[in-house]
């Protein structure tokens, strides 16, 4: 060990002698703060260490309309901070030329704790997820080579890439790493719920919220489990088939398995109060609609409805009384993290 130190010291001395006049920019490393109640990080930071300059470039790219073919639609266009980075007022989101897909924008939060992304698991690494919206013709309708060419031609990116990666070369690896760095820092773990769990600031649940948590643990937490409020599985929750979007197959689109028809990723419930509308196609406008669906709205939809949602008598649904719904709603609202929703580090302006 000591020998190594001496060895490196030697190298440093050599370099410091020979490179007297050369100025090398060294990005500032940044430690990621992970809430104490959170699980282990899934994202491998050793392959893409966080730096202030990398994150700054990632943020610039996140709000860069020129990643799209019309030079307008940025990531932030559909992922608005105030709505927990979802598309406010849209059931499904629209991309360039007003084209629409068939999915509801998902929140961007705590992605560093996941290994699969989107409603159907079409991306299995955070770095590669942005390839989908950038290249999808109903979203940003671009190609990676064309985006790289555009970015290379803008002088402001010369500085940003140089600061983050040592020189001005624009590559897909650097662009995607910078976007990941920015997204990795987007951690939402400062809601009232978190403060209660961590015994912070003498925060306590109201009686109604406590009651809601109990009901939640009994009736919802099998799927919406853990501190991320999802077990990360794909499930068919008996949502009625949407005849508007006949191309929708759920998880089957990615896996090719019939059994995965109309299965969707169990979404996290963090900031759920703000991330309306709900479900994969944004059909429900309010949380009340969602709870009503789970008590009265489930039906066969051409796939295999999750056995957990089948009652003993064979009918579909979860039994929740009106009072219980009120309590559940109170609890769900404790998952709203205003620190995150107003964090200037993530804001466009």
């Amino acid at each position: 060990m000591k020998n190594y130190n001496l060895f490196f010291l030697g190298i440093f001395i050599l370099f410091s002698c020979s490179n007297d006049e050369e100025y090398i920019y060294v990005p500032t490393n940044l430690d990621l703060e992970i809430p104490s109640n959170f699980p282990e990080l899934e994202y491998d930071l050793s392959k893409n260490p966080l730096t202030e300059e990398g994150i700054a470039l990632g943020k610039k790219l996140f709000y860069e309309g020129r990643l799209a073919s019309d030079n307008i639609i940025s990531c932030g266009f559909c992922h608005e901070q105030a709505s927990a980075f979802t598309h406010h007022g849209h059931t499904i989101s629209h991309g360039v030329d007003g084209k629409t897909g068939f999915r509801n924008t998902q929140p961007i939060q705590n992605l560093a704790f996941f290994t699969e992304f989107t409603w159907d698991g079409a991306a299995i690494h955070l770095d590669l997820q942005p390839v989908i919206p950038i290249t999808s013709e109903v979203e940003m309708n671009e190609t990676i080579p064309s985006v790289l060419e555009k970015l290379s031609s803008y002088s402001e990116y010369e500085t940003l890439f140089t600061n983050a990666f040592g020189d001005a070369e624009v590559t897909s690896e650097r662009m995607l790493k910078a976007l990941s760095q920015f997204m990795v820092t987007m951690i939402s773990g400062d809601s009232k719920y978190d403060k209660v769990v961590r015994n912070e600031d003498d925060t306590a649940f109201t009686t109604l919220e406590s009651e809601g948590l109990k009901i939640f643990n009994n009736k919802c937490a099998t799927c919406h489990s853990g501190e991320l409020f999802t077990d990360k599985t794909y499930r068919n929750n008996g949502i009625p088939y949407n005849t508007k979007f006949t191309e929708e197959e759920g998880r089957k689109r990615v896996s090719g398995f019939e059994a995965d028809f109309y299965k969707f990723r169990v979404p996290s419930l963090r900031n759920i109060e703000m991330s309306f509308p709900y479900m994969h196609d944004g059909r429900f406008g309010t949380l009340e609609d969602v709870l009503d669906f789970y008590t009265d709205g489930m039906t066969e939809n051409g796939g295999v409805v999750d056995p957990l949602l089948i009652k003993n008598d064979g009918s579909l649904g979860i039994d929740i009384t009106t009072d219980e719904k009120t309590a559940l709603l109170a609890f769900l609202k404790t998952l709203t993290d205003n620190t995150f929703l107003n964090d200037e580090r993530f804001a466009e302006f």
Partner: protein
Amino acid sequence: MKITKYIAACFIALTITACSSEEEEITGEGNVSLEFDNSYSTSDLLLTTTSYDANETEEVKISKVKYIVSNIRLEDEDGVVFTYPKEDSYFIVTEEDGASQFINLTNVPAGNYTKITFGIGVDKEKYLEGATGQGDFLTLAQDAGMMWSWQAGYKFFVFEGVYTSDETTTETAFAFHMGSHGTALDNYKEVTLDLTNSARVRVDTTPEIHVVADISKVLAGTTSFLLDDAAQIHVDAVKSPQISTNVNGMFTVDHVHN
């Protein structure tokens, strides 16, 4: 202390090599040229203009054949395997682009190689390295149309054209796009081929390994595909792995030039 041991080992190794090379000295590094030559049965593959017989009454005119060749390994006569550096071992072969059909491997240790192994597609290990693992290959693949836009993954094999049959009398489009299915199905497969004669890599000799890919095997391989049953196969849990097997079965080494 340890260094002296290494020096001694090197010295011994050098001495051994020096002794055995009285017949022929095999040292240093050379290059290998790997040619991927697409055929249809016993004929050269021609795009668009030529009709080829497929299964039963079906006839195809092929407009696109592209595949990713990766993770190349060479095995010599003593069973020693040389693995080409992984970060440089991903290539896209396109029928429309003649240059893409010649893969040049550099810095290959001199030796007499008797087997070659390669994969079709991108292995999960590389994919899960994220942006680090893809490097510029991602840009190349997208340029070549070898990435999906609705899924963040590579198309390993692209096969497109039109077909007719007794049942389908007007020319109808077909397309097979095969790749892995997220975490659900890994369709990356490797194939190992014996070389007809050994590829003798030397500092000043670049052998050319001529691989023929018989594209007729895509429809008529281990599994037979009738285009009248399914002309568009993109993500199918049953058929995609079958296509992957057919594709891996289409390669043979025709000959090696030394």
